[in-house]
Every structure is written in structure tokens, then in C-alpha cells.
């Protein structure tokens, strides 16, 4: 049962354009969402997060949008740069304040083309 879904295994975007990565979830108990970036042979690196009480969080070139009614979140990267090429994982956690493990999506491989 995939509680966090990233339906696009890969995405190719031209350098300088906007990259939009999508994520859907099914568990309504999730209340905190995170995006991780992963390069080959490295562990996931935290990128940006959003609490369910917000619908947008921005950090430099990265913005995460949350649509709770649709159980959908997206990560926007603008402008996209070659170093952004990596696998991006959407992750979610349950009721805040605990030590719940993260539930990850399968990842989207973002390829930034020059």
C-alpha cells in the first residue's frame, strides 16, 4: 500500500526553466511533509518541509505547495540549475511531536538539461 506516491519516475527540464515535482498521499493522518534530494551513493539530504497548517513554504529557489483537500504536494524549483539533477523523494510523517518514521515516495529522477 503506497501511502506516498510519486507517479513520475523521471522528469527532464531545461536549465533555467521551472521544475515541478509532484507527490500525492493517501493517509490523512500525515501532517508534516518533507522533500529530500539524493545523489548517487549518498544518503538523502533534507531540502524543504511544510506543516499541514500551511499551504506554501519557500526557501530560495525551492517552494513547496500543499493542497490538503487534494492530498497533493508539489516542489517547484526555479530557475533549475545543473546541480539540481538528482533523485527527489517526497516524505511524510504522522502526528507531530513523536518519533514516527518517515514514509517515502519512490522518488523522481530530475534531469536538468543544458
Amino acid at each position, binding site marked *: 500500500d503506497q501511502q506516498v506516491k510519486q507517479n513520475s519516475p523521471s522528469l527532464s527540464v531545461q536549465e533555467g526553466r521551472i521544475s515541478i515535482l509532484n507527490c500525492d498521499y493517501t493517509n490523512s493522518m500525515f501532517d508534516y511533509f518533507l522533500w529530500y534530494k539524493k545523489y548517487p551513493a549518498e*544518503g538523502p539530504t533534507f531540502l524543504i518541509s511544510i506543516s499541514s497548517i500551511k499551504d506554501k513554504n519557500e526557501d530560495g529557489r525551492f517552494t513547496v505547495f500543499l493542497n490538503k483537500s487534494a492530498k497533493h504536494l508539489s516542489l517547484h524549483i526555479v530557475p533549475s540549475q545543473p546541480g539540481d539533477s538528482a533523485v527527489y523523494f517526497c516524505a511524510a510523517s504522522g502526528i507531530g511531536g513523536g*518519533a514516527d518514521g518517515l514514509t*517515502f515516495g*519512490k522518488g523522481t529522477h530530475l534531469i536538468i538539461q543544458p
Partner: protein
Amino acid sequence: EPEVTQTPSHQVTQMGQEVILRCVPISNHLYFYWYRQILGQKVEFLVSFYNNEISEKSEIFDDQFSVERPDGSNFTLKIRSTKLEDSAMYFCASSGQGADTEAFFGQGTRLTVV
């Protein structure tokens, strides 16, 4: 910048043997996790550890698995009798206040069971 370190980076073991994967979490963190990623699949939660005990574990974390914090710095994952399907990248992570804050991941240990 503080980081989570894992050793070894690659472990090859024979089926049925015991392995211990080691992790040094970030020093002032209180929550510790193990995740794994089978090749080509998503990152999966195994176990979380807080206050010297397991706080949550997934279905994957059966009786073959155990975790320990033998001293103030190390956090280990033991697999008692390895199976071929245990071959995966194992990631250790730690966080200061629970998984709903950013979790910092180590570089991973690639376990190959032959």
C-alpha cells in the same frame, strides 16, 4: 557541519551470517532511525529509537533485526541471520526533535548478501 557517519560503506556477507551496521548520529540528536533502500525501490522505514528504546518499527523489522545504542555515540543495526533479500543500502538518520523535523541521513552502508 555536523553529519551522520556510517561504517562500513560496503559490507559483503554470506547468507546466514550475522552483520552489524554502525552509525554515529549527530551528537546532540535524540532520535535515531534506520531506513533501507533495495536497489530500484523506495527508501523504507525500519525502526526509530528514542530514550534508549525502540519507539516505532515497521513490518520489515522482524525478529532478525535488532538495534542498540551501546555507548553515548554509536547506534547499531544487527541482522542475525542474513538472507539474500536483505541486500540493500541501509541508511542511518538522526533528528533533534523527531521525524517531523528534518532528519539527517548518513551516506549509507551497502549490504550485499551472497
